């Protein structure tokens, strides 16, 4: 397929790996891939062992399903139990454990949950079932937030009144700042997400790079994109630079998608948001603006996600911060496996624990 196959060429991959190993010399560096889509791509393509001794890649908090607090799942179940309500969700969310149950378990007991590919499909469900109240579980980062906002706009335009969103939107740069300032995290560069950057633009990382003196390189999700991104980061670390560079220039600009940014500013307001396993990060979430309250399921149906620290041996929080690899958690691969996950990092296909388990890295 065009725009994919040419970024998977094995000969170029070998050349890039050789270049990284040459540049690294005897001193290895520690980099973080912020995004869960990168985590899966790195695990699937087997990049980690190829760079052994030169570059250690630690995984970051960039999996929206993983960082959505359990109180949100509880709120989703509560709203789903209101008579007449129909829940629409991305498939990844169904197995995430709340405090006592998951959407999948409740679906087995009769909760009406439909899996959709696009938030627009949820609007179509509402239009087709005027006697139901459709609540879309709007989970995501900046990549997905414009699609959630676009669905609200589409509902408004088509006067679909039985549609609302239970939003759990998180934004990436604030989380990167938190990680960069944590002395226990010890990373020397950020491999920044491709499609979050498509929306927010490369310039959005300038404050993180300059304030924490840490290099940031945006990379696409194909194997050659990732290897080139790692190579660019490594060269910055060796030079002592802390610049923002963009490997994914074909899909992300310096300023980002201004139309999507305008939509986000119109429909959402930033707030201090809780990240599962991590805690509250100032200004790192988007909630639906008051003037769109009729599309906000929290306002419309009177549900409020309640956030409280979890009591569990699961160390997802430390995995999400890159403090430990999955095999540093006592539950990993024992009490916690994809079929019976204890924590969100094992649930989502893009969770760090699920990626390590599936591709056999870190099991030893």
């Amino acid at each position, binding site marked *: *397929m*065009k*725009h*994919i196959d*040419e970024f998977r*060429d094995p*000969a*170029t991959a*070998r*050349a*890039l790996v*050789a*270049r990284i190993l*040459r540049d690294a010399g005897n001193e290895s560096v520690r980099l973080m891939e912020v*995004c*869960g*889509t990168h985590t899966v791509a790195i695990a699937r393509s087997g990049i980690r062992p190829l760079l052994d001794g030169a570059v250690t890649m630690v995984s970051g908090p*960039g*999996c*929206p*399903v993983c960082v959505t607090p359990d109180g949100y799942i509880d709120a989703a179940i509560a709203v789903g139990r209101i008579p007449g309500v129909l829940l629409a969700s*991305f498939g*990844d969310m169904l197995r995430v454990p709340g405090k006592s149950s998951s959407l999948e378990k409740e679906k087995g007991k009769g909760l009406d949950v439909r899996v959709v*590919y*696009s*938030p*627009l*499909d949820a609007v179509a469900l509402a239009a087709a079932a005027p006697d139901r109240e459709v609540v879309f579980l709007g989970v*995501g*980062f900046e*990549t*997905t937030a*414009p*699609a959630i906002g*676009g669905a609200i*706009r*589409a509902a408004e335009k088509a006067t679909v009144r039985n549609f609302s969103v239970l939003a759990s939107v998180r934004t990436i740069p604030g989380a990167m700042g938190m990680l960069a300032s944590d002395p226990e995290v010890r990373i020397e560069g950020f491999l920044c*997400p*491709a*499609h*979050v950057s*498509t*929306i927010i633009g490369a310039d959005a990382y300038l404050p993180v790079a300059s304030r924490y003196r840490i290099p940031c390189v945006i990379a696409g*999700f194909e194997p*050659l*994109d990732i290897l*080139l991104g790692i190579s660019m980061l490594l060269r910055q670390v060796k030079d002592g630079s802390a610049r923002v560079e963009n*490997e994914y*220039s*074909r*899909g*992300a*600009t310096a300023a980002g*998608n201004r*139309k*999507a940014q305008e*939509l986000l500013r119109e429909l959402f307001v930033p707030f201090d948001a809780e990240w599962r396993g991590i805690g509250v990060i100032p200004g790192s979430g988007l909630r639906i603006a008051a003037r769109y309250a009729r599309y906000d399921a929290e306002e419309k149906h009177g549900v409020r996600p309640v956030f409280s620290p979890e009591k569990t041996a699961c160390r997802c929080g430390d995995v999400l911060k890159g403090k430990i690899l999955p095999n540093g958690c006592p539950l990993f691969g024992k009490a916690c496996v994809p079929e019976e996950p204890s924590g969100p990092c094992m649930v*989502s296909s*893009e969770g760090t624990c699920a990626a390590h388990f599936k591709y056999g890295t870190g099991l030893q």
Partner: protein
Amino acid sequence: MCLGVPAKILSVRGDTAVIALGGVQREISVVLLEEVSAGDWVIVHAGFAIERLSEEEAERTLALFQEIRNANEAH
């Protein structure tokens, strides 16, 4: 979850476009883009085109790969 796929636009009508994706045609929203027309490549995420793919920039990256392969052979 932030995966987006490159797809070619076949036709546009208002805020909606038809794309070809893995041999299947489907409709997506193009409200997040300024102007799109048939033949453009876009990145599709959750039913929306989130950006136009720059073919020139793609070519530049591929040219850089060629340079890196050449330099590697010289080593």
